[in-house]
């Protein structure tokens, strides 16, 4: 469990897949302040894409633009296009609720609902009507918790409060909650920043497994983490996408000077 799979150095055996999400000339404004400048980024299916960069560089803003969580922020405006399977998610015809069911999100701070563990995971399937019966729902909840690697720890206390778990368990519960709605894309906003190294290792392994079924975009401050879990890395700085490419290339052979400075620890 503690041995880390060093994915950065190994070449992904699978051929390049098609782009699941494409950001095209994405600009984001908070009121008059522009936070993202003409970002163009393709996110490939069944891959882990990590967004790195110093604080305030716009990586979280970009992530939140991918499932329109920015809508909840007053004065936030997005221009350009973000296409999910070729459809612009900022189009008038797109239902934001449906979009978020397809593009799930895990947040920086574990935020389980103040309800039981079972209720936490069952909530998504319930509101989306994914389960036809109680047995169906039980099955979804069980398999989601299993896939989040939490089953052994919580199987005897599903009716206990989700907020009573440890930080790492809570974060895995949030992942179970996110995957229970069967999204296509999973957005993770610094999912390990509040966790200790052991919990982090567990979640990183989990991300690697989840890649089989989901397209994952992860924002991280830890370059080691980006190197370990992702196949593609994008470096943001001051609201601009500076460089993107295969994780191995970015970390071993960055083209841009800024990227090089950042990954070697000279800025950020």
């Amino acid at each position, binding site marked *: 469990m503690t041995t880390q799979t060093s994915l950065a150095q190994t070449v992904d055996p699978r051929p390049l897949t098609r782009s699941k999400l494409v950001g095209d000339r994405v600009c984001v404004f908070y009121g008059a302040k522009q936070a993202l400048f003409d970002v163009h980024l393709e996110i490939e299916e069944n891959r882990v894409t990590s967004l790195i960069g110093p604080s305030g560089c716009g990586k979280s803003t970009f992530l939140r633009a991918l499932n329109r969580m920015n809508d909840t922020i007053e004065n936030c405006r997005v221009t350009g296009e973000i296409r999910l399977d070729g459809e612009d998610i900022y189009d008038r015809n797109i239902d934001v609720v449906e979009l978020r069911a397809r593009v799930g999100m895990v947040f920086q701070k574990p*935020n389980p*609902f103040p309800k039981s563990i079972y209720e936490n995971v069952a909530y998504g399937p319930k509101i989306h009507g994914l389960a036809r019966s109680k047995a169906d729902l039980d099955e979804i909840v069980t398999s989601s918790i299993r896939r989040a690697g939490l089953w052994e720890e919580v199987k005897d206390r599903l009716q206990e409060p989700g907020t009573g778990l440890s930080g790492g368990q809570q974060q895995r519960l949030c992942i179970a909650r996110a995957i229970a709605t069967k999204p296509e894309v999973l957005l993770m906003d610094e999912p390990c920043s509040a966790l200790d190294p052991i919990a982090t290792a567990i979640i990183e392994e989990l991300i690697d497994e989840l890649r089989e079924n989901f397209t994952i975009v992860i924002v991280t401050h830890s370059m080691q983490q980006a190197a370990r879990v992702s196949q593609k890395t994008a470096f943001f700085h001051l609201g601009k996408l500076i460089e993107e490419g295969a994780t191995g290339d970015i970390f071993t052979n960055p083209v841009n000077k800024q990227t090089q400075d950042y990954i070697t620890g000279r800025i950020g």
Partner: protein
Amino acid sequence: MTDQLMSQYATAETRSIHTTSDARGRLKRRYRSEANFKALGVAALATAILFLVVLLSSIVWKGIPAFVYNFASLPLDVAGVDRTDLAKANYDGIVKAAIRAQFPELTSRGDTRLVASLMSSGAPTVLRDQVQDDPAGLDRAGAYSLPISDFADLYLKGQISSSTTSTIAATATVRVDGDKVTLTFPAGALATVLAADAVPANAATPPRQLLATDLSLLVYVGDVVVKADGLTTTTVSGAAILGDATKLPASVNAVRLRSLVVPEASRKFSDKEIVWTDALVERGYVRTGFNWIFATKGASREAEMAGILGAVIGSALTLIVTLALAFPVGVAAAIYLEEFAPRNRWTTFIEVNINNLAAVPSIVFGLLGLAVFLNFFGFERSAPYVGGFVLALMTLPTIIIASRVALRSVPPSIREGALGIGASRLQAVFHHVLPLAMPGILTGAIIGMARALGETAPLLMIGMVAFVVDLPNGFASAATVLPVQIYMWADFPEPAFEQRTSAGILVLLVFLVAMNLTAIILRRRFERRW
């Protein structure tokens, strides 16, 4: 000096700027101001608690007696009652006859009227109701217990006058001269007793006249009670007000002298009434029991027939309407403003005005109710539902403000978590945010409701300040509310209403505590720490 010594030996490393005498002095001042602040806080708290205790205990002290009452179960002459038509009988006559029968020796018109007034003027009504409820009781002696008058009740509760009774050991000689009875005691026998009562007696003839403004002196000789009006150091004389004085023996033992501190002129319950009431108690007709009249009747001009239930029902009906309107509307408005409405000039304007409305004097809401509900819509006057509307308008801003604060205090991560898995905004609010905000919302609601419960001014304008005898039987029937009832009772001159005022305040407090308790229990249920 110590510091100088210290500084001589202190090296550069040990001398920190935090250990100089100046710094120590500053530290001491900081602790002192902290201690002062704590002492002030404790003092303020203690003062508040003291006032609260004084207030509550005085209310409880005055109010508790109103919850018990003295009822008389006199033998009744029911021969004249038509068993087929119980409602038509002359209950007034029956009650009067029953009380007069207890004192057959009273013949003067004044006395018979006075003795009849020992029973409450509501007693015939009570008797009629009881007979109709339980006709079989007509054949059973003492089956019906009727309220005595409010003054007789106050007297029995010891609130008319305190009295002291002392027995005189010496033998007295009795002389009856027409109405006048004179008791002559051996020299010195009266001295100790009279000294204790501080009644100056004349040494010899003519006796000192005891006026209505002096304390009352009653002499108990066997079955006879004499009210003293002349007093010397050795004789007491006066007219018998109970029993037949002519049947007294020439010399009597164990004469009891009772003095009532409050002069007859200063009270509304004469010596005669006191003696008769005592006689009724001695004969075992009077029973102290729970004051069911107070608990089950509406307003009345007679203190003993006045009850709180009408006002309690009126308050309950009004508050039900208030809660049913203000709570859902207030919470919905708060949810809309907090979770859905865009931040713009209009919502800011609305927000400022809601805050202003919370500070508007309640009488203004009464005027609004009068102008809109009564004059424009033509709703009934004095109706609980109109009162509920007005109080709901008054309570709304409080509930909205409290609910918004409660909603705002729910961490945004909960909303994001729900939205992030595809809940709609409404679902996020109703499934996750609202349950977490509920304790705060309930606190706000209960504060608003408590204010509504104690409000009189807005109800004044819509006619709920009314003398309503019948119990309200619906949202549209005329009603009054607890604080109004208390205010009206406080305005009545009869001393028995003073007790009822305090008792009404107690009921209001109990009502309030019950409401708060409900809110606390509900909060506990929502607050389940998951």
